């Protein structure tokens, strides 16, 4: 078996294959070690970290919908310092390829976060989460504005000299292609799409919104057609690699994203109920190779 057959490249970084875990569901990575063969994956995007630790949102954080999941975790994380000291090194030790996900909060914290990241050895690829719907500042507020996307991506490229920078975008806009273009113009090495879709639920027993922050982010199989459309659209707007994420729940789904033009895919919600899925997708790719993208205009 040719080990390099399915290797891919984003910026200057090579990944052993194009099957990643999405940021968030898999935590810092090793929590899933008993359930998923992490070193076999192209990468594990770790849960987004911010400069300072974040407590995340109070109240309920999860709610199932029909074939979907609403979450309002709110970027709970240990903060970048503890992350780089405690969470990241064991991943390298375990032979897992990490992608570091960074939260864009306000400009100053963001700069400090980038500077801290730049001082780490080994961090050769980061994903900028410009799209979390579950926080007050930063997050989606950045990801909906092309100018802000440009500024945030540019600062990352400036400070993280040499590292590949992925911009993770939100679908809660009229044209995600515009945001992708802005990221590309600012030097992004790849686009990750999509983050969760804005949604909400109401508890009919209590007669109140389920979540403290009322809105939450929808993920899972329910949103797959939305994510696929986003990847198709972005692919036809930018030259840089697109990493597809959103509702992938079968090897056939993965195939669709490659056909739409994704260079790699990420699996999020599906690992909750089907931890075997990444392995199944890898086997399918091993057997048939990465499907060539469809060559059609928008």
């Amino acid at each position, binding site marked *: 078996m040719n080990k390099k057959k399915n290797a891919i490249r984003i910026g200057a970084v090579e990944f052993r294959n194009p099957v990643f875990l999405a940021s968030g569901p898999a935590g810092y990575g090793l*929590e*899933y070690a008993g359930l998923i063969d*992490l070193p076999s994956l192209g990468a594990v995007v770790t849960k987004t970290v911010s400069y300072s630790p974040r407590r995340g949102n109070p109240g309920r954080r999860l709610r199932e919908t029909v074939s979907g999941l609403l979450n309002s975790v709110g970027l709970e994380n240990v903060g970048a310092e503890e992350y780089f000291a405690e969470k990241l090194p064991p991943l390298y030790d375990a032979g897992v390829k990490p992608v570091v996900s960074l939260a864009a909060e306000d400009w100053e914290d963001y700069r400090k976060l980038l500077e801290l990241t730049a001082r780490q050895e080994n961090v050769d690829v980061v994903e900028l989460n410009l799209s979390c719907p579950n926080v007050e500042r930063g997050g989606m507020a950045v990801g909906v504005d092309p100018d802000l996307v440009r500024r945030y991506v540019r600062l990352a490229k400036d400070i993280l000299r040499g590292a590949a920078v992925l911009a993770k975008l939100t679908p809660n806009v009229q044209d995600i292609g515009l945001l992708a273009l802005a990221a590309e113009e600012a030097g992004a090495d790849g686009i990750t799409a999509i983050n969760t879709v804005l949604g909400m639920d109401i508890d009919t027993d209590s007669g109140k919104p389920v979540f403290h922050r009322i809105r939450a982010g929808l993920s899972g199989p329910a949103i797959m057609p939305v994510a696929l459309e986003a990847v198709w659209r972005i692919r036809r707007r930018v030259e840089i690699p697109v990493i597809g994420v959103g509702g992938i729940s079968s090897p056939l789904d993965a195939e669709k994203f490659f056909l739409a033009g994704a260079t790699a895919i990420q699996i999020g919600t599906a690992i909750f*109920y*089907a931890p075997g899925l990444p392995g199944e997708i890898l086997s399918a790719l091993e057997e048939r190779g990465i499907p060539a993208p469809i060559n059609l205009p928008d």
Partner: protein
Amino acid sequence: MNRIKSLFRARVLRHQVLTPSCRLVVFDRPAGFPAASPGHFVSVRVSDSSVPLLRRPFSILDLTAGELILLVKIVGRGSALLAGANPGDGLEIGGPFGGTVFEPPARGKAVFVAGGTGLAPAVFAARTWNKGGLVEEIHLVHGASTRDELLTGFCEKDFSHVHQATLDGSAGFGGDAVSLLEKLVNDGVVPLDALFSCGPRGMIRALVERVGSRFAEHHASLEAVMACGVGACRGCTVPVRENGETLLRAVCSDGTVFPAGDIAWEEWED
């Protein structure tokens, strides 16, 4: 890296109907399934479609050389699918999960208060500790809405004393399990060394507020909606006071067992 395998395919061996809504589901213990302790749980994929989406957590009621036993109450689609699995069906099961467990009581005397299916970890604790000779006196206080819903007939022998309550008074004490425990404490019937509780949040809170302080220690196994079951997603957090701070702890990996007195009820919205 922690390479303990925790994903298995388990075959249903048989069912035992206990009440109109509850049954024991007995699985063939899958090869390689690790040892587990009381308070540990498994998460079961109940459907091969995405409805319902998430695996469902169930406490381990017993784990023997050959069997894994769950106590399942039908409350919705997921539990109904599990309860309806036929002997021979294979289900994907993750586990055993859980960070903290019920530790045997230092002085060998324990009181369990179990609301509804909270009985499962109580039975597992009793069986484990009896087998290990770790306990000499073990009380069960079990409440249900009505006589038909009392979970009896399969675990009386595991406890030295069983105290039952029904809300409608159709069997045992008339009232809830908390009120019954209050009475047992007041009457000096139960030892006050260690209280263990599992069941609905409201029950545990009432225990803490009304009788918890009478016990030397009180450990509660909590429930929360879960997605990953392994501490990754941070979806199942509860507020717990530690060193003067209130932290959000994951029921699945920091729990399921917490010092009951430390739970910050006033901050626990749901």
